[in-house]
């Protein structure tokens, strides 16, 4: 009964218990709810900090619960889980602040924030899962806790989106379950460990493991929005902006991508996966998704839909980096897990501000926005440039490494994909930036809630400024200790046995 044993459980509970309490708060208890929200979020960040310090000092944090004889629920902190747990806990904190500001005065806030907190617990569980069954449990919990957030508005359109969301994710979950059970019957209890755990099994059950890999990736690909499983994502845009931000940057999409990373590196092991020949098809699908998403984004006038298709494209960078067999592309893919998160959340925060304060939903309505809201637009600009891959922002770093890795492994086609995608990114982001900064506003704003001047509420403005600062920092300070890049280097060295 020491802290090492319980730390991970506390990390989960810090948001879960908060969520449960919030459900029972009265709708009017605005202050108390905000206080609880922020308290839970802060506590989580602190606990994750303690965990990272411990992991660095080679502490082993592990909690187990026997589900069935021979089947354990395992929470474990390793370098990889620390990466994702940090991302989700930090971004949750800023998103909480944003959501409080965004939903002010709207109905059903207790319900919203309750599920919001549970959603974050599920994401943390996904991060800390020490084996596939644990991952699956939290992955499904994530589906359940995000559904109420997606349909929060309760309109016909959002309910329809929620239905699509569930059809996709539950079917994906079923495939994932099938694969998990199959693997369990073949290999017994397998735990995640850097370098993989299936090398032995792969010698006897080659074809089964290939089939299981395909099932796993299909199941995870639904949430990671790999083509053709991405259909739910643009529809889910009807959710309130903080939900979209969380879904795209931290929770759902990222959980899928993180799952792919886990499967390749910690379950199969990159060498085993390469030997089975399953990486090349994955790289192909990822590459196609990157281009497909970018092309579709080009034709969206709805800002959030454009961002959604951009996510489809950008998240596949992670899959591509993972699937290109090579030290450097692994670094690129894993770093993008973090970098895409902070960039995309900034973009969604800003899109939410534009919609909430000025009623601007469409790209074609954005002329002159930079003059009206210079701070918000500046944050948007930084994140957008990062997405394109302009140095010195975060996105450049990850693209650079994926590119280096592609060259290193002789996959020149992947370099071409990167180049084409960057061009497309520029093609759908630069016109927005141009219109916002350089075009003169002719018409009045669609719905000006700030009465002619000023930015949005400070609770809305502060989060994107913070995350935009992170985008800059992650790029400029990429070589500093504790930067995502350095942490990922550490992981990758273990994986490749250097």
């Amino acid at each position, binding site marked *: 009964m020491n802290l090492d044993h319980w730390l991970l459980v506390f990390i989960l509970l810090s948001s879960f218990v908060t969520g449960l309490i919030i459900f029972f708060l009265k709708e009017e208890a605005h202050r108390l709810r905000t206080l609880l929200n922020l308290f839970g979020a802060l506590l989580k960040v602190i606990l994750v900090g303690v965990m990272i310090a411990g992991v660095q000092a080679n502490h082993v944090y592990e909690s187990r619960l026997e589900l*069935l004889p021979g089947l354990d629920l395992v929470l474990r902190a390793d370098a990889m889980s620390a990466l994702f747990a940090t991302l989700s806990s930090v971004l949750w904190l800023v998103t909480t602040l944003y959501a409080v500001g965004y939903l002010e005065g709207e109905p059903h806030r207790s319900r919203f924030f309750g599920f919001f907190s549970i959603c974050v617990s599920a994401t943390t569980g996904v991060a800390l899962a020490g084996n596939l069954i644990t991952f699956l449990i939290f992955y499904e*919990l994530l*589906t359940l806790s995000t559904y109420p957030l997606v349909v929060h508005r309760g*309109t016909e359109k959002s309910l329809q989106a929620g239905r699509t969301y569930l059809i996709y994710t539950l079917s994906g979950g079923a495939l994932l379950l*099938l694969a998990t059970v199959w693997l369990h019957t073949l290999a017994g209890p397998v735990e995640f460990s850097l370098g993989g755990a299936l090398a032995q099994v792969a010698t006897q059950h080659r074809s089964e493991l290939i089939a299981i890999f395909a099932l796993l990736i299909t199941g995870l690909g639904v949430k990671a929005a790999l083509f053709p499983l991405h259909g739910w994502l643009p529809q889910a845009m009807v959710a309130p902006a903080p939900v979209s931000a969380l879904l795209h940057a931290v929770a759902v999409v990222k959980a899928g991508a993180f799952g792919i990373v886990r499967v390749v590196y910690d379950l199969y092991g990159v060498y085993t996966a390469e030997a089975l020949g399953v990486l090349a098809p994955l790289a192909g699908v990822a590459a196609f998704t990157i281009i497909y998403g970018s092309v579709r984004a080009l034709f969206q006038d709805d800002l959030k839909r454009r961002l959604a298709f951009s996510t489809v494209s950008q998240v596949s960078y992670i899959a591509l980096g993972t699937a290109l067999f090579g030290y450097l592309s692994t670094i690129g893919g894993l770093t993008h897990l973090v970098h895409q998160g902070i960039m995309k959340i900034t973009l969604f925060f800003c899109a939410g501000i534009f919609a909430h304060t000025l009623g601007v939903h469409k790209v074609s309505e954005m002329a002159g926005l930079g003059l009206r809201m210079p701070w918000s637009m500046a944050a948007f600009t930084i994140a957008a440039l990062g997405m394109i891959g302009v140095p010195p922002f975060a996105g450049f770093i990850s693209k650079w490494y994926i590119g280096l890795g592609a060259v290193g492994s002789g996959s020149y086609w992947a370099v071409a994909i990167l180049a084409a995608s960057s061009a497309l990114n520029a093609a759908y982001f630069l016109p927005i930036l141009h219109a916002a900064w350089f075009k003169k506003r002719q018409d009045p704003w669609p719905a000006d809630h700030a009465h002619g001047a000023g930015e949005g509420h400070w609770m809305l403005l502060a989060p994107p400024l913070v995350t935009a600062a992170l985008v800059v920092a992650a790029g400029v300070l990429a070589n500093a200790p504790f930067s995502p890049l350095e942490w990922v280097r550490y992981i990758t060295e273990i994986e490749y046995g250097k």
Partner: protein
Amino acid sequence: MTLWDTAPWLLWSIVLPLSAGILTFLFRRAAPWIGIATTLGSVVSVAGLAAQVVHSGPLRYSVGGWGVPLGIDLRADGLSVLMLVMSAVIGVAVSVYAARYFSDADATDERAVQAHQRAYFWPLWMFLLAGLNGLFLAADIFHLYVTLELLGFAAVSLAALAGKRAAVVAAMRYLLVSLSGSLFFLFGVAILYAAYATVDLTALAGKVQPGPLAWSALALMASGLLIKGAVFPLHFWLPPAHANAPTPVSALLSALVVKASFYILLRLWFELFGAVVTPATATFLGLLGAGAILWGSAQALHQPRLKLLVAYSTVAQLGYLMLVFPLAQNAGSALTAWSACVYFVLAHACAKTAMFLAAGNIAHAAGHDRIADLDGITQALPLSVAAFALAGISLIGLPPSGGFIAKWMLLQAAIGSGKWGWATLILVGSLLAAAYVMRVLWHAFTQVEVARPLHRVPRTMEWSALALSLLAVLLGLMAARPVELLRSGAPVSMHAPGQT
């Protein structure tokens, strides 16, 4: 050795409800309290019994010391203990719920009907519990028949309790089904007794040999049990009977009563007829199960009324239990399949009780249970909707619920023996369940004015539903010990190589 260790707990779990049946009939005012106390008492006695079985393996107890062949023998192994735990826990929750349900002034439309319901519910429920516990502890097939019959009569009377025309018609149909089912079963018992001169399960187990006699006995007993257990396509009587009963009764019928028939079938199949059954019959039962899952779910998807939806969900869920027969054919996965179906029974009992209670609350508050018009009222009853949702999670089989663990084991048994067809069926069934559960839940998220409840729903009624649904979800996290316990006294054929 203390009194706790040596007390005849199996006897208590029958005697307590039996005497409570008489007491509640005599002292009507105190009936709810007697009922709750009795179910609590049965929790205690089951706990005592469980400790004994965990400690020293399967038990046998001769009532009055007469023993075979003259007296009544009771026996308890892992399976019976888990079934008793189920009836005790569900019993407490339903009793607490019923105490409010039948005393609440506006629970029913007419006061006369209400007084009548309150007077008869408690004695009948206590007899039902006694019959159920007796059945789970019976050591011989004649005693199984007797308890099955007792259970049937109590169940039919409870189903008719609402007194409305639809309920009475449904109950009459249920009566006919129940009687003919028992009759079939009795024929089977008679054949076995005539052939082998004993009714004791253990004694018979060694004697039954394949042959026309055993086959006809099996066919008769199995068909009787399939009718009573509402296994597709013999389920026609269940939805109206369950949906038209008062809410606590619906819960009891769906969660506990149908499971009794399945329990007997399980015992007979694996203990008595182990040498008689063929792979073809096993597959046949599995196919009935498949039919139940698909047909029951499809019907649930189209029901306009909430309670009917829940009742059809029972039809579908019972189908999964039938999968144990084909899945246990393979020696390597037999134990997993066996554990899976028993755990499925437990998970379904909790989830279905919670769901019926929650549905009852919603219907009570709305004054109707038309699913299409539930928008406003579901938003006025967040606790009941939460209970419905959590129960739904278990029925769908999403983690970490009890239903998930059960389906995990079912899938493990199916994949482990290479039976991909059954595995696919299990997953498709889950998705169908998700569809019919979501049909109800999405009304809780629509954009409407929150409706004012027509009738107030007391807190205890909401909380007892919620507590059970939480239990259904948490069952997934505490499966290890029950599954371990199940191995105690599991039929010999279960001990597959490498799985001890």
